[in-house]
């Protein structure tokens, strides 16, 4: 293939991926409410966003759930990765397989099966069920990220620590955790963005008492284009880009 054909093709695919995002960004600064025609630069939609109490509340709830679920997922995911990396036990392969299956499971199946679980045990849908939903969604990804990081370690360091008398917890706390720190932060950021962006699992696992941002946006956009949603989209895209940049940076370090 000619180099220019290749470049043109790649550019075309990128244009396809980015055009809608650029359009939304342009709309969000356009004084004209509904049309593409440029009516001058404005920040009023961003201002409007701050006045919209339900959106601000939903955003706050989304941030809360993202921070809490990323933290919980990080703890469980790191322990799972540590267990898979350090311990040999019966059923290890089964654990690997089930984490892989959970990672590949379609969101809707995760959402539905958790809904059945919550209905079955009689939990009312809200913050806690949503948290469990997001943690279920994120843990396998944290496990995979941190596990990959563990695999890059020099195993002799752990052996040396054991020979010098470190007990299991000390090995974990003093050796493995510091070495895996960048992977952990990357896993945290990954979970954070996943939680912030998730629509489907949230749809099934939260109740009317705890409406998160994507669901709020969902009910708004079904009724057409909204200028304040444009502004909100730009804000969310920016947060995601920042998290992705940061996690890439951390993963690249020393790898």
């Amino acid at each position, binding site marked *: 293939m000619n180099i220019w054909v*290749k470049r043109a093709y790649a550019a075309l695919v990128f244009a396809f991926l*980015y055009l809608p995002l650029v*359009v939304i960004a342009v709309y969000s600064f356009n004084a004209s409410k509904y049309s593409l025609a440029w009516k001058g630069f404005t920040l009023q939609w961003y201002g409007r966003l701050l006045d919209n109490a339900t959106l601000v509340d939903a955003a706050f709830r989304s941030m809360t759930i993202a921070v809490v679920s990323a933290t919980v997922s990080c703890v469980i995911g790191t322990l799972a990765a540590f267990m898979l990396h350090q311990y040999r036990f019966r059923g290890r392969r089964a654990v690997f397989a089930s984490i892989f299956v959970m990672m590949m499971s379609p969101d809707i199946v995760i959402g539905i099966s*958790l*809904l059945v*679980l919550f209905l079955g045990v009689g939990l009312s849908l809200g913050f806690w069920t949503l948290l469990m939903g997001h943690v*279920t969604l994120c843990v396998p990804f944290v496990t995979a990220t941190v596990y990959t990081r563990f695999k890059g370690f020099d195993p002799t360091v752990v052996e040396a620590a054991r020979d010098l008398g470190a007990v299991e917890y000390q090995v974990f706390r003093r050796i493995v955790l510091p070495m895996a720190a960048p992977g952990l932060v990357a896993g945290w950021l990954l979970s954070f*963005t996943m939680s912030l962006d998730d629509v489907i699992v949230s749809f099934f696992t939260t109740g009317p008492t705890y409406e998160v941002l994507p669901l709020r946006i969902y009910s708004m956009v079904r009724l057409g284009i909204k200028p304040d949603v444009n502004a909100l989209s730009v804000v969310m895209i920016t947060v995601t*880009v920042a998290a992705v940049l940061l996690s890439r940076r951390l993963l690249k370090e020393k790898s």
Partner: protein
Amino acid sequence: MKDSLFKRLVVTGVLGWLVLFGAVPTLMLLAVSFLKRDPDSLIEPVLSLSSYHELFQPALGSMLAESMVMAATATLLCLLIGYPFAYIVARADKRHTPTLLLLVMIPFWTNTLIRTYALVAVLKADGVVNTFLRFLGVIDAPLKLMYTPTAVFIGLVYTLLPFMILPLYAAIEKLDLKLLEASRDLGASRFSTFRKITIPLTMPGIVSGCMLVFLPALGMFYIPDILGGARTMLLGNYIRDQFLAARNIPLGAAASIAMTLIMGLMLALYYKSVRRAGRKVRI
């Protein structure tokens, strides 16, 4: 050697978590799908195959088939667009690959709902596509793109393309160039090298890309809601409606189990292709 308390805690905790949020919900879903619907208490504790029977009734079956065809077509489109693209990125100058990959990652992690919504601005009657085509003089009146099955297709391909590109990139990047050279040296044409060497060796990437596109493409109920007309439905819309509108939970569960089985089939295919490509599975 006796296991330390820490080890026992970790193993019990992690396994407990996996059972509670992995195995139990799946088994409950499976159990519910074999029960009967009850108009008052939602589920009647009577064993029955009626939900599965209903899934294969012509009316429902054709809807399911339509949804599958739609998701499969979107997957194929993603593969056709994504493969050459992933190839170009994987073979690009090493100095540029991190940037190119980052540019693929950003839409990958951006909220798909927001990206779907952004597409409305592109597809609507006075949106970018129509304005551009009118400017070029290709069309006089705006094309009706929004609220059509075409819009749903565009939406699925647009939101899921990065899910295809990333595994393909990973597979192509690992491809040993010496094998391609050897094939060419032995007299194979470019095409047969591609067909007999490149494709089989990158098959794990192809299968996992297809899985990552096909399964969500069946389930993303908000894409038809936002972009499609009233008649366009995905399996996800159907499952959601059974749970939240029709209140036929066993039927919704049976449809979800069907989706899980499709995933199982694709995972089996993936493992087979990995074994064939002679590589170790990475999680």
